[in-house]
């Protein structure tokens, strides 16, 4: 198993998962929010094309979590649509 953090919560994923697949397996479907109305967004394409799953990973914003492999100790967070600090 691979241990990682989502919004401070300790979660487990499987070796070989992408971050998005591991989050989904933990029941987490909301990965981002729309810019103006803050509507919840999940992933749509799962192959790095649609930009609906951008998250902050280890302090770096705008990571396409649907194609990035999960690694031990990763710190995964929600981000505003533009990246950076959450302001709401």
């Amino acid at each position, binding site marked *: 198993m691979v241990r990682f953090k989502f919004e401070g919560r300790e979660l487990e994923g499987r070796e070989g998962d992408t971050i998005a697949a591991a989050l989904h397996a933990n029941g987490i479907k*909301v990965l981002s929010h729309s810019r103006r109305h803050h509507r919840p967004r*999940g992933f*749509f394409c799962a192959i790095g*094309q649609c930009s609906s799953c951008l998250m902050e990973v280890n302090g770096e914003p705008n990571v396409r979590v649907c194609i990035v492999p999960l690694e031990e100790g990763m710190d995964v967070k929600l981000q505003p649509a533009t990246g950076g600090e959450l302001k709401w």
Partner: protein
Amino acid sequence: MVNTDLLVVGGGPAGLAAADTAASLGIDVLLVDEGRAVGGQLVKQTHKFFGSGEHYAGVRGIDIPKLLNREENSQRVRILTDTTVVGCYEDGVVSALTGEDNYFKIKAKRAIFATGATEKFLSFPGNDLPGVYGAGAVQTLMNQFGVIPGKRVLMVGAGNIGIIVSYQLLQAGVPVAAVVEAAPTIGGYLVHASKLARAGVPILTRHTILEARGKDAVESAVIAQLDDNWQVVPGTEEEVDVDVVCLAVGLSPVVDLLRQLGCEMKYVPELGGHVPIRDKNLKTATGWIYVAGDVAGVEEASAAMVEGRLAGAAAAAELGADKQEADTVISRCLASLDALRGGPVGEKIRSGIAKLEGGAVNA
């Protein structure tokens, strides 16, 4: 600057077949792919392919990449994974990014763009809710990562992808509430549709999705019947209890890089949208770029592989490969494509390609 005779952009079925063919004809190839491994979307195609032996019938999609990436050609094919082509310039320079910070330029005498296609979207209220997925995303989640997408699924689209993914959902133990299809007939192979019907999944033709409902994710969907003019029949609206809406409404070619190059396009709905204009050997008017696979018009992986071989052989011939050998491959591929596109199933593709011929270039 990395110099190469032939650059192949994209390591899915078309790109791998192109590299394999060109290498067999003695040409050095550089193949770049943005994924962690080559194979493109074959990595999630756990089902067995149809057709003849030449088209890998009976072989599961996931097993095809290694057949196309042969040891005997490993000296001639250099593969760079995790590498995204980010720019194409007028002087024939292509720039690429490996990982996060290794940015470099490539100069190729010929290039084959096999960038594939991306899932089409559908317009309806709630279509942005988590739980609305492209059919390919559901396949990725289930077949590649072993994660089920949800508890109950509404499938939108009864083409081959919608039908096959519905069946794979059932195999994974996820109930499919219904398959809705706006057209009056089922587009996918009947052998697959029959499997669904036997499992008790209703395939509702002339039906569409009107809305996805839910707060933070899909909690239900509203479907309705359509009349002969594709208009909703009032009073037929029905709310279905699902937490996943899967859209299998087709693919559109990923032509961004070709556009950047100023490659001439034509809108051909039968081929999935805007496609590059090219000659019968898949060469564009740029003079140095070929296209192959879904980027040239959305078809099945079998056709993509043949197109890859065709473009690979045609480019190899221009790069000094034995002309007779290359010509043999070219004519075999053209015949093979005719066979794949034959009969009533290929009618749409044939009419799409006929529309392109008006603007085709003769290289």
